């Protein structure tokens, strides 16, 4: 059990900086997901915690002890890799027990613990097999077993589910969550899949271009994205983002003249400010034709997703999607909608920052009070 403190951590390869001053506190027993597009530095950060990458500047402490110069095995971290990274010439039992063998544990003790772990991850019947004789899901279980057997203080997951097919991914996601509930070990999970992040995390850290965009519980990030990047990255289907200019305290106008009403009490804006208006597809209200303040959207096509329909339309010349429960009548031709004022997210077009009186906490949300 251990908390992790990341203080002003930077990483550069030669002159190329990939991480710019990361600050993050991870509480003991927390399940933290680092979410971001490829190349944002999330895996690098994870590997720095593990000790597989050097730290250019700043420090990382695990359980209060600065680990910058410690070897990976001295840090008490276990890691699960995207490609499983099992030793192909060893059996499942040897793979799981290898760390104990290196540590010099007696054979009987090793075998007892391997059997125990195999039972937890459901691999008792496969202990004598080689990894090549296992399915993808089974291999991932071996990788998890190998991580668990060391009873680590910290679990690190580097996109462990991306090589699995969709169905197995959902299943393994649940198993990881269950495992965490049972072991209560501090876990850091790196992924580019926002659904994985939303469903697993106690707290999500969204990274972009080597910086933390926002950190917080999944619900908060979804409801109050601090930047346009977070807004567009979280949520499927993605949030609609419409460029517009503030023309009055309560109105923004798009390039083609379409006006969108704003709640004047909510936002701190200036007349003439360039903004982006964000509306989640599920927040759009479909109304009766001719309703007051309704926009008539031109329907381009509809994607049927079973429980709901995604209607692709245009608003003010921009792409605009509307999520509609499948029970409703299918939209054709023109779709009258209104945008509830409290569902609008407003971002400054230049800085990408959220505009609001009440500014959500950016950065290390959990430790903001500390």
């Amino acid at each position, binding site marked *: 059990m251990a908390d992790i403190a990341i203080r002003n951590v930077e990483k550069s390869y030669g002159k190329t900086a990939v991480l710019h001053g990361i600050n993050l506190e991870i509480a003991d027993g927390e399940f933290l997901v680092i979410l971001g597009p490829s190349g944002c530095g999330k895996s690098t950060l994870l590997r720095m915690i593990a000790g597989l990458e050097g730290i250019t500047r700043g420090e990382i402490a695990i359980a209060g002890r600065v680990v910058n110069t410690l070897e990976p095995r001295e840090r008490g971290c276990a890691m699960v*890799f995207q490609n499983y990274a*099992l030793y192909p*010439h060893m059996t499942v039992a040897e793979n799981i027990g290898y*760390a104990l063998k*290196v540590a010099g544990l007696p054979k009987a003790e090793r075998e007892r613990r391997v059997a125990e772990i195999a039972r937890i991850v459901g691999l008792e019947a496969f202990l004598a097999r080689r990894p090549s004789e296992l399915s993808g899901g089974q291999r991932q279980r071996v990788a998890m077993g190998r991580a668990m057997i060391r009873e680590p203080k910290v679990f690190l997951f580097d996109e462990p589910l991306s090589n699995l097919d969709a169905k197995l991914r959902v299943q393994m996601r649940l198993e990881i969550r269950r495992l965490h509930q049972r072991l209560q070990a501090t876990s850091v999970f790196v992924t580019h899949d926002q659904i994985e992040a939303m469903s697993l995390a106690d707290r999500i850290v969204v990274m972009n271009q080597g910086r933390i965009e926002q950190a917080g519980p999944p619900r908060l990030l979804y409801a109050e994205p601090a930047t346009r990047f977070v807004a567009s990255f979280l949520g499927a289907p993605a949030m609609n983002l419409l460029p517009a200019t503030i023309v009055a305290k309560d109105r923004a106008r798009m390039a083609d003249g379409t006006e969108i009403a704003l709640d004047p009490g909510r936002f701190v804006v200036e007349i003439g400010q360039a903004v982006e208006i964000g509306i989640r597809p599920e927040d759009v209200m479909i109304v009766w034709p001719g309703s007051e303040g309704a926009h008539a959207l031109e329907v381009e096509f509809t994607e049927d997703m079973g429980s709901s329909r995604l209607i692709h339309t245009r608003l003010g010349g921009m792409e605009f999607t509307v999520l509609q429960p499948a029970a409703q009548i299918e939209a054709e031709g023109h779709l009258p909608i209104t945008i509830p004022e409290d569902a609008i997210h407003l971002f400054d077009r230049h800085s990408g920052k959220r505009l609001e009186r009440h500014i959500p906490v950016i950065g290390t949300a959990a430790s903001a009070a500390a």
Partner: protein
Amino acid sequence: MTTLALAPAIDRVPRRARPVRELLAGTLFVVPATMLLLAIILAPLLCLLILSVTDYEIGAMQIRWLGLANFEKALSDPVFRRAMGNTLLYVALVLPGGVFIGLLVALLVHGRTRSRAFYEVAYFLPVTATLIAMAAVWQFLLHPKLGPVNGLLKAAGFPEMAFISEPSLLIPTLAAIGLWNLIGFNMILFLAGLTAIPRDLYDAAEIDGAGGPIDRFLTVTWPQLAPTTMFVAVTTSITAFKVFDTVAVLTRGRDGSEVLLYAIYLEGFQYFKIGYSAALTVIFLAFMLAFSVFQAFQLDRKVHY
């Protein structure tokens, strides 16, 4: 739609006739490749087998059937037996040397970043150099009086070594030159194998506590290179069994330094005893085949996971 349209047409063919027609069509497709295989590879081998049981000599007007006499003669021929022993000694020196030095060089070169290209070319140069031409250079280098190698030995206080005249040193000297010629090629094969090892495995080993260079080698590199090592071992032993050019140029088989291929060459092209030389070739081929099959089957079980 295509499948639907075709289905009735297939159904019209009587059910029993279909396998026969498919068999016929399949056979016809295989015929050209089989003919080529027969003409190019199997026919010459058959020729060899036939010659090996005759007393054919170049220019002879008659051919006599000898049965296994050629083989009996070969096995009791002291020259041939010596050639066989020499070849085995040569292989015993070149095979482990070629594999392990090649691996060592590959590991060292693989660790380089900027200078890697230079080392690759440098080690590969002997492979591209013609061994016959380079043999002249070695003859000079190893010369007892003029050669710099003996110069160095003397300077270091060692006695002069007659590398290319002292009979007991002949095969080891030839093996050293063979190694010099071969290492670069094996290094390239090992480098290819090293490049294919997933980085994740080293990371996993490091997390597991096997992060030291020797642990890394034993946990990841060596097991991952096993298939490459087997391939290198098989090709190296085949190359070693076929040693000829250095013998032909440097020793000409004198002082009991004959090797298999050189003995075959002497019988066939110097003494024109084609039949006898064919019999020696058959023995040589059988030897190589047995050796390669043994290696492949023995190692194959251990190297593929």
